[in-house]
């Protein structure tokens, strides 16, 4: 097995609440594994447990195949972490960046060389002599990153490392991380709230909720094929339409929506389902002429209800006789169609754009203990979805 780090039946409780309850997770050597999930899902706790900074109440952690017990001290030398709220030690930026290297008793020259190199990489050279406690948020975050990267760990833990970086710094950090990680064959555990970040950096994505891993898979696969309603919603899939699969052949199916209308999909599944369509998969067109040719199987007559500019893309709320559909389109489309509320048009999406998940609406298992907060939070945002169904 190629797992560098593996946890089995790991649990961590705080004051009775269950912050972490992971049945099994094997981190592959050299991969970048992104952890995602709502606030309080246990991402940081999992990172801390893997980083051997926090002892789980139960369960087994192994590093390169052998259990980490008393050896934790040695194993820790192969790791380095950037916490969600990194703590910079008293001293200069350079001191901080050199900290991990000094711990490893590298010789002074090597320490200086590597620290300088890492500061260069992260654009910190000009700040080297500054007091590490008096930096801007983004600068501090970069120092913490440099400190961890400088030691060239086998496993690198990054807990929301780019949260305070400006967009350019973030992009360049992602590029640097990819380069450094592939050069040193570093395994990276990366916590983020941004799916763009996860797709840009991650080989695999794990979605957590209430301390458990809800879905784990290749990044693109998780993005396009969420495992359930929760993951779909969490990954920003805005159109979740309940229905029932009527006809189903190998790799294709027809879904009859509860609110009327039917969808064609390449996804195979039976029974009650939730059809997930990402809003950017929906394209808008003038109502098609009868008999007009199109490769697109799903064409819905729709009326524009609302158009909201949300930056690069515009959010278009559509009324599809029975249900609401949300589309996100670029400005040119708006211009081209002269989009305005009340306008009738056709919404299309490819068969491959319709992903089916089991409709767990009515049997959604109540997560135990503390996890209920995750649910609460999820529900708080359900507003958007409820709207789309009334």
């Amino acid at each position: 097995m190629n797992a560098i780090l593996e946890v089995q039946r790991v649990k961590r409780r705080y004051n009775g609440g269950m912050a972490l309850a992971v049945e099994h997770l094997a981190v592959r050597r050299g991969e970048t594994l992104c952890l995602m999930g709502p606030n309080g899902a246990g991402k940081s706790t999992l990172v801390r447990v893997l980083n051997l900074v926090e002892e789980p109440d139960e369960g087994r952690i192994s590093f390169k195949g052998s259990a980490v017990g008393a050896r934790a001290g040695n194993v820790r030398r192969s790791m380095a972490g950037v916490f969600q709220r990194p703590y910079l030690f008293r001293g200069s930026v350079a001191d901080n960046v050199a900290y991990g290297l000094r711990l490893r008793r590298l010789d002074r020259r090597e320490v200086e060389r590597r620290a300088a190199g890492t500061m260069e990489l992260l654009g910190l050279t000009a700040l080297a002599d500054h007091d590490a406690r008096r930096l801007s948020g983004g600068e501090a975050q970069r120092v913490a990153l440099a400190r961890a990267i400088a030691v060239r760990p086998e496993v690198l833990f990054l807990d929301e490392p780019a949260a305070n970086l400006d967009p350019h710094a973030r992009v360049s950090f992602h590029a640097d991380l990819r380069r450094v990680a592939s050069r040193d064959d570093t395994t990276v555990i990366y916590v983020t709230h941004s799916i763009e970040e996860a797709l840009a950096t991650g080989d695999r994505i794990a979605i957590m909720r209430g301390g458990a891993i809800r879905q784990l898979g290749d990044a693109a696969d998780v993005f396009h094929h969420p495992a359930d309603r929760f993951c779909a919603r969490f990954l920003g899939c805005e159109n979740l339409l309940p229905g029932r699969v009527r006809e189903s052949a190998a790799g294709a199916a027809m879904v009859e929506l509860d609110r009327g209308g039917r969808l064609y999909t390449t996804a195979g599944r039976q029974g009650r389902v939730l059809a997930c369509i990402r809003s950017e998969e929906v394209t808008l067109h003038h109502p098609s002429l009868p008999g007009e040719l199109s490769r697109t199987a799903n064409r819905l007559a729709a009326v524009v209800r609302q158009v909201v500019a949300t930056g690069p893309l515009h959010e278009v709320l559509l009324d599809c006789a029975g249900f609401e559909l949300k589309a996100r389109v670029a400005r040119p489309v708006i211009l081209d169609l002269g989009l305005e509320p009340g306008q009738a048009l056709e919404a299309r999406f490819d068969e491959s754009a319709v992903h089916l998940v089991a409709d767990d609406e009515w049997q959604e298992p109540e997560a135990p203990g503390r996890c209920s907060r995750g649910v609460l939070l999820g529900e708080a945002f359900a507003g958007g979805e409820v709207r789309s169904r009334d």
Partner: protein
Amino acid sequence: MIGESIRQAVELLLTDGEVWSIILRSLQVSGLAVLFGCLLGIPLGVLVGIHRFRARGAVVAVINTGMALPPVVVGLFIFMLLSRSGPFGSLHLLYTKQAMVAAQLVLALPLILGITVSGIGAIPREVLDQARSLGASRWQTAMAALGEARPMLIVAVIAGFGRIIAEVGAVMIVGGNFHGDTQVMTTAIMEEVRKGNFSLALALGVILLTIAFSANGVMARLEQRAMAS
């Protein structure tokens, strides 16, 4: 009254060679005691400060109580240990500077320990985790905590030093105030008070405070240099 004492203090320093050797002896005894106190107290304090063990509350309570050890009682206790008829009488340590250092060590230790423990306890727990997460060993984690709690450690040392450079009860009993041998500033002051030479006693007090002031200054300077490096 103060002015007169200062004048007398300056005069003493200028004319009385004996005063200088008493000052040196005070610094030697209390300096050594505080040095040992740090060597023992700081690592122990960091240990207790970092770890959350079962008996921690009890240990802290004992340390805190130690701050209330009356010097006379400590002196007496050490005296009884070192006395000819005591268990360590054969070492002939009574009325030596070694005995004085030992007694003052006992007095300084709880203060150094106690302040270190809560100084370490006051730094954010993240310090420890952050150090560990970067690969720090137990020892290195403790050093990281120590580094972050530095200002509190300085106070710990200064308070420990202050307590013993100023105390007379213990050194009087175990040192004996032998002139030219185990007499230190505080026992000299005590003697002058007994003789009714109040203003001379105050003058010696002024000198003692000046020493303490300078010693603290030196410590602060060292600390600043350590911080800067």
